[in-house]
């Protein structure tokens, strides 16, 4: 009897173990799942409240837009079906496509669109400019709305079709009624995927499921434009704080897609024949050294230009990015490879000579005032930029005071306009994704210290040129004005530009349909 019981227990155990371990394979059921390592943790879910790129990517999954940029940065209709403008270009009438629905089944109406645009217009820079030039935005009927401008403005479609943060996503009117400085709490979307709020674990996991009632456009996909066809049933984002673990998980087949492996890991990942490593973002990022124009010594344009002369893009890129496959020099303030790329006035950046910088600095009367560089040690790329700048400036004759801190402290301190002894600063580094500095309207190029970006450049001529760009009617006119803006930016030494770099993506070979774009989209991707 005892013997029989033991045998029975053994049998049960033998059955139980594979059953229990077999539960591991339960994800591999009938539904198709795209398992993604996103570039950052999704900390908040309101892409209008925050400019974080990860929140923008989340927004693209669950919301749709009125217009969307193609790969040549030309806006195309997305939720809009037809539109026309009055002869004087002041009255724009838009009609929505048939079949547009929110995730709760309600139809998308003009009232939803107007509420969404108004909320976006209170937070986004381009949105603020559009509304500053708007006389009225009114619903004509449930599917038609009319935008009436108060004066000539050439960037209407570029604004409502902008590709990066803050993107004018269309939300239900009740959601868009939320104060733009408060987070939304209702995540009913209008896009191809539905956010599963009960499965969201901040710092770890985000789950999206296909929205069965989404009606994609018929046009082929091109960057953000074209048909957004959800080809998987589920997209799961799992955030990995450790790059090496993320790489191992991809190589072991535990995930399908790694959005932003660091360039130094890319060669190792590429040795795996089951994985493709490639550059998916044609614009990449642009390194920036930002001066504080309010405080000495960088309140003097000649001193700023002397500092820029010492900056050699190749040194920055070699130190911070490494493999030349993933970077290139670029002396246009607009990303190289985009329509407005030019080299007007960029000789100062091309100098790349400490000797020349030393000579130029000697002529300025620089009195040895220490330059406080804020070094964010928790962001390797920016930390490396800071180290290179410190060495270049020291060699050029500047007195440098390098102050290490975390990025969070830096973001707080850079908002200070106070003198250095009261918590101010002289220089910090950052990068912009290419799509954010694609034209003169970017806040990085502002010359208005009251509404401009940290560092607070002041130049009336620059602001006049930026305003002219907004009014320009033709691409040729825009290109000409963009070059003028660039010339002025270099003339006043607004910022140092440290090179254009590209983050690769890595994915297993069973993943197909990636869209080339500065933003990572998840429609059109299939897992075979």
């Amino acid at each position, binding site marked *: 009897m005892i013997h029989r019981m033991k045998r029975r227990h053994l049998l049960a155990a033998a059955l139980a173990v594979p059953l229990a371990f077999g539960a591991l394979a339960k994800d591999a059921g009938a539904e198709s799942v795209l398992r993604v390592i996103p570039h950052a943790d999704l900390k908040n879910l309101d892409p209008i409240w925050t400019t974080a790129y990860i929140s923008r990517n989340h927004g693209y999954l669950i919301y749709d837009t009125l217009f969307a940029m193609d790969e040549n940065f030309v806006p195309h209709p997305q939720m809009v079906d037809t539109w026309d403008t009055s002869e004087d270009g002041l009255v724009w009438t838009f009609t929505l496509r048939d079949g547009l629905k929110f995730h709760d089944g309600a139809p998308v109406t003009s009232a939803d669109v107007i509420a969404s645009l108004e909320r976006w217009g209170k937070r986004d820079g381009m949105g603020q400019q559009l509304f500053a030039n708007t006389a009225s935005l009114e619903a004509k009927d449930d599917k038609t709305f009319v935008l009436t401008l108060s004066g000539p403005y050439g960037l209407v479609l570029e604004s409502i079709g902008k590709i990066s943060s803050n993107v004018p996503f269309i939300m239900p009117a009740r959601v868009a009624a939320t104060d733009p*400085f408060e987070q939304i709490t209702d995540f009913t979307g209008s896009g191809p995927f539905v956010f599963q709020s009960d499965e969201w674990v901040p710092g*770890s996991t985000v789950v999206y499921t296909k929205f069965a009632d989404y009606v994609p456009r018929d046009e082929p996909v091109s960057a953000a434009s074209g048909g957004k066809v959800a080809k998987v049933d589920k997209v799961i984002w799992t955030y*990995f*704080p450790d790059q*090496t673990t993320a790489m191992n998980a991809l190589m072991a087949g535990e995930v399908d897609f790694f959005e932003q492996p660091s360039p130094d890991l890319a060669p190792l990942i590429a040795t795996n024949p089951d994985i493709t490593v490639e550059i998916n973002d044609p614009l990449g990022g642009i390194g920036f050294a930002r001066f504080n124009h309010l405080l000495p010594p960088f309140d003097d344009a000649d001193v700023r230009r002397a500092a820029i002369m010492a900056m050699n893009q190749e040194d920055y890129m070699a130190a911070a990015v490494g493999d030349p496959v993933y970077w290139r020099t670029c002396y246009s303030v607009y990303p190289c490879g985009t329509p407005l790329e030019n080299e007007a006035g960029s000789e100062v950046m091309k100098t790349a000579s400490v000797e020349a910088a030393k000579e130029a600095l000697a002529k300025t009367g620089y009195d040895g005032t220490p330059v406080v560089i804020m070094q964010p040690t928790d962001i390797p790329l920016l930390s490396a930029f800071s180290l290179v700048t410190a060495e270049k400036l020291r060699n050029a004759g500047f007195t440098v005071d390098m102050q290490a801190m975390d*990025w969070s402290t830096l973001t707080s301190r850079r*908002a200070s306009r106070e003198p250095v002894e009261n918590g101010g600063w002289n220089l910090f580094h950052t990068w912009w994704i290419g799509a954010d500095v694609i034209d003169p309207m970017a806040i990085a190029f502002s010359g208005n210290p009251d509404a401009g970006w940290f560092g607070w450049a002041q130049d009336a001529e620059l602001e006049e040129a930026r305003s002219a760009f907004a009014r320009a009617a033709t691409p040729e006119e825009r290109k000409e004005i963009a070059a003028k803006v660039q010339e002025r930016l270099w003339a006043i030494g607004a910022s140092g530009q440290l090179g254009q770099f590209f983050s690769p993506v890595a994915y297993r070979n069973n993943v197909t349909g990636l869209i080339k774009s500065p933003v990572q989209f998840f429609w059109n991707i299939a897992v075979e």
Partner: protein
Amino acid sequence: MLRYVLLRILSTIPVMVIVALFVFLMLRLAPGDPAAVIAGDYATAEDVARIREQLGLSDPIVVQFFRWVGSLMQGDLGISIFSGKPVSELIAQRIEPTLMLALTTITFAVLVAVPLGTLAAFKAGSWIDRFVMLFSVGGFSIPVFVLGYILIYIFSMTLKILPVQGYRSPFTDGLGPFLLHIALPSVTLSVIFIALISRMTRASVIEVLEEDYIRTARAKGQSEYNILIHHALRNAAVPVVTVIGIGIALLIGGVVVTESVFNIPGLGRLVLDAVLARDYPIIQGLILFFSFIYIVINLLIDLSYTLFDPRIRY
């Protein structure tokens, strides 16, 4: 005994108040501003100020403190600035992986370290003893992330028998997936505790083996096995239990590296992310929570002494 337990529980109140005050002030006096992080690169100073206003961060510190304490009194740990989720919900989401990691680690460490330490003490001066001490020094010296990567390379990438990362719940995913996913992190993390507990056990047992009552037991003809297990080990248990208890407390609050290397969504990572983003309510809530765990574990350790040493009475 009951009176002692009640007094100890009551004594946690002033400790928690001091911790709350200290944490609150430390965070407010430290540089960094969550509003600036939220506002991002495009924000103007006015945007940042508006967000600060909305978050209640522009109120005087005293007002903010009493507002927080008022919520605490109602059992509300606050709302995360970034995710908008209640801190208690975030802790509830993360506590299971951390607790399971701590329990499996300590269980494994105790199962290995106590026999190892006892053996080393019994064979003090022998090659076994030297080996245990060598292992102990090695366990203290090798960084957790180095060992973690080595084990991942061997068991996940080369032999392909264990997953690289992640956590599966024994309650919802089954025991098998749970054990497969927890094996490498537990072994990695347990090495340092095996080193610590085996050293402590060895030292404690050696001390006890020199006591008069051990000599008496030997004189009465007790077997060495009996002496070691029933007399020496039990009397050596008090310091060992203390180390184990402190180990559990440390594991709950301090496994951020292991959680990162094995991508386990636990409390360690939650607190690190919160610190980097200056998500004040999460940091405050978690530190209070960790303090409470420390106090409870210390109380349990003190009470457990009575099981091992009948002379101890409360």
